């Protein structure tokens, strides 16, 4: 299989190196054009994110132009004087296919299962397909490969726990809120303190639909500033019991050296105890909320260490899903191999049959030269005999060849037939245009907080 990938990722290179070969959209288009012009690459896709820069290739014939790609990335890096060669990795054939499937599924990401990479793969594919070159930079093979990769990524995410939970402190708080309240639309949030961390967390909750943000801060002006930014309203600290009684979620992040939300305040707000769930997220150090509140039956009190533990647990759950995800990826890698082999074998079989047909015709012509007495009817019968004989001789090898394509020996079989009939790789016409589907539409990237 001529598919290959060369590049670097967080596995092979530190950030100081990766940032030197990060390509923006315009740079990626130029780089692909250079690859086409310099190395005659037939198909290529350049994927560049914070954690990886990878070039997927399908060369016209022969070995992939790894050197040309290396030079391209080297030129980009050498603007700052360093060589990037020691940090590059290279996969060919099935390993390259599996690598792309793992990348698209989030298995190769820094945070296992992060969601944004799928959108980045899609964008890279669409951008590469849109480069103004004729023929386009993505053809039948890479179109098929990337469309499969996006489908595999979606399937892995849907059918395994690889994307389970949230892998940042803010998103863990959101996940927690969703597991308590279900839909967050219409839920009211009380923000204690006007710090940046609390603001980020509120923004994450607002994306999920919370409304009615109330900001309470010692300095009323700062509370008003934050409330304006968050489209909420500010209150004085002395109104804390009132606003607490109507809140569903409390976010505490003040810089106070003592507890801001005491048990007495809670009792003032809920004289008979809370009768509905109240989620309190205390991300302040020292803590803002009296830990005794956690003993209230309907109060769910989480501090920053608890949230970090959730993130760790999430990562563990995701990692446990890796074997199942790999199983799906292996199955799809086999599917791609079978598809690729079927595409490769079609021209080989055609050439094989054309050659046989050529021999049949030339032998018939030689035969007829000594048999002038044969009438049209006799000639037709001889023609029919030779055609049947040829079909019978070629039938079994053709059937067996197609049957063997799904297995591991598929490519070897094709090469054997090429060898036996003297057909070179370059002799094979391009794969059928039927699979040259247009690139997929860009979709909105979900869960953007865990970025590649």
């Amino acid at each position, binding site marked *: 299989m001529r598919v290959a990938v060369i590049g670097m990722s967080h596995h092979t290179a530190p950030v100081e190196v990766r940032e030197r070969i990060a390509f923006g959209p315009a740079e990626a288009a130029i780089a692909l054009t250079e690859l086409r012009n310099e190395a005659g690459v037939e198909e290529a896709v350049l994927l560049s994110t914070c954690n990886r820069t990878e070039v997927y290739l399908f060369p016209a014939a022969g070995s992939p132009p790894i050197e040309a790609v290396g030079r391209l990335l080297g030129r980009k890096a050498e603007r700052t004087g360093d060589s990037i060669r020691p940090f590059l990795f290279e996969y060919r054939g099935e390993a390259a296919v599996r690598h792309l499937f793992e990348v698209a599924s989030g298995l190769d990401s820094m945070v296992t299962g992060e969601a944004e990479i799928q959108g980045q793969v899609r964008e890279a594919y669409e951008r590469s397909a849109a480069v103004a070159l004729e023929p386009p930079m993505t053809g039948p093979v890479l179109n098929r490969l990337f469309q499969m990769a996006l489908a595999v990524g979606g*399937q892995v995410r849907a*059918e395994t*726990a690889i994307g389970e939970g949230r892998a940042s402190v803010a998103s863990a708080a959101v996940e927690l809120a969703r*597991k308590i309240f279900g839909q967050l639309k219409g839920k009211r949030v009380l923000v204690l303190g006007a710090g940046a961390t609390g603001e980020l967390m509120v923004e994450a909750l607002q994306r999920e639909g919370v409304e009615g943000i109330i900001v309470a801060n010692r300095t009323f002006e700062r509370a008003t500033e934050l409330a304006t930014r968050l489209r909420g309203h500010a209150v004085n600290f002395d109104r804390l019991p009132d606003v607490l009684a109507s809140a569903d979620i409390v976010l505490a992040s003040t810089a106070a050296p003592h507890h801001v939300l005491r048990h007495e305040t809670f009792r003032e707000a809920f004289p008979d105890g809370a009768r509905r*769930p109240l989620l309190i997220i205390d991300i302040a150090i020292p803590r803002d909320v009296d830990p005794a509140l956690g003993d209230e039956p*309907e109060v769910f009190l989480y501090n920053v260490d*608890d949230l970090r533990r959730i993130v760790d647990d999430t990562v563990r*759950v995701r990692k446990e899903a890796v074997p199942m995800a790999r199983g799906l990826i292996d199955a799809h890698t086999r599917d791609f191999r079978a598809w690729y082999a079927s595409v490769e074998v079609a021209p080989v079989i055609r050439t094989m049959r054309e050659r046989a047909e050529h021999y049949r015709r030339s032998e018939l012509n030689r035969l007829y030269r000594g048999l002038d007495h044969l009438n049209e009817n006799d000639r037709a019968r001889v023609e029919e005999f030779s055609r049947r004989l040829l079909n019978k001789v070629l039938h079994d090898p053709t059937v067996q060849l197609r049957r063997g394509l799904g297995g591991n020996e598929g490519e070897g079989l094709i090469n054997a037939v090429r060898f036996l009939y003297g057909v070179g790789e370059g002799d094979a016409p391009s794969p059928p245009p039927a699979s040259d589907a247009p690139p997929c539409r860009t979709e909105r990237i979900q869960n953007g907080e865990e970025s590649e």
Partner: protein
Amino acid sequence: MIHHLALGIYLIAFALWVGVLLRGSRGRAVFFASATGAVAVGVHAAALLGFHREYGELPLVGPGAALSSLAFVGGLALLVTLPLREAARVAIVLLPFIIVLMGVALGVGIEPSPLILEFRGTGFVLHVAFAFLGYQGFTLAAAAGLLYLVQHHEIKSKRLGRFFHYIPPLATLDKLGRVGGLVGFASLSLALGFGAAWVLQHPGVIALTDPKVVWAIGSWMVFLLSLAARVGRDGSGYRGAAATLVGFLLVVVGYVVLRLTSGATDGLFL
């Protein structure tokens, strides 16, 4: 035989749901587990219909037949949750309940009753239909209640493992328990009303002091109390879930004990 098949499919459905829990899988795995559960309920319904056709009586009299019918009530609760997305995950609680009842039913034998009872008339049919609906609502409420308590414990103890990810949000479970409890209680009230009317129309069929009647009225009161714990002034999701679960267990244990100790000769039960 069809009962055995239904039990087998219930077991497969349960295994699939356990797989969903352990592997954290979603999408197709959840679909297959849900679909298998639905098939099991369908086969179970066919088994009960077959019983009715073969013996010419409703499967409510002999202990095995009655336990199978009670298990079928759980199956109906399972069916109700299937279109409710996350709520369908209560299957992991409902299925063991169904499987145990089916196992006991098959163990004691699903046989017709030697008694010849006059089960006819609109009042009796309505009584049975609403009783099924009522117990189905409570089964659902109890299953949701159990999951609520587990999820509440998970979040409270900050152990957000497989159960946390598998179990639906507390609000969803609370809503399911509330709706199941309300619909169940209303239906059971109607069932008792129709049953009383039917008894009045057929004097002497069953006495008010009959343990079955006492059990039915006792169940109704237990359900009333558990509902009050959920919707009363001091009602909270946690308290409602706990009360519903305890009430349901009391009713089921009472039913099974009475059913097994009274034998087939005590006649009509549900």
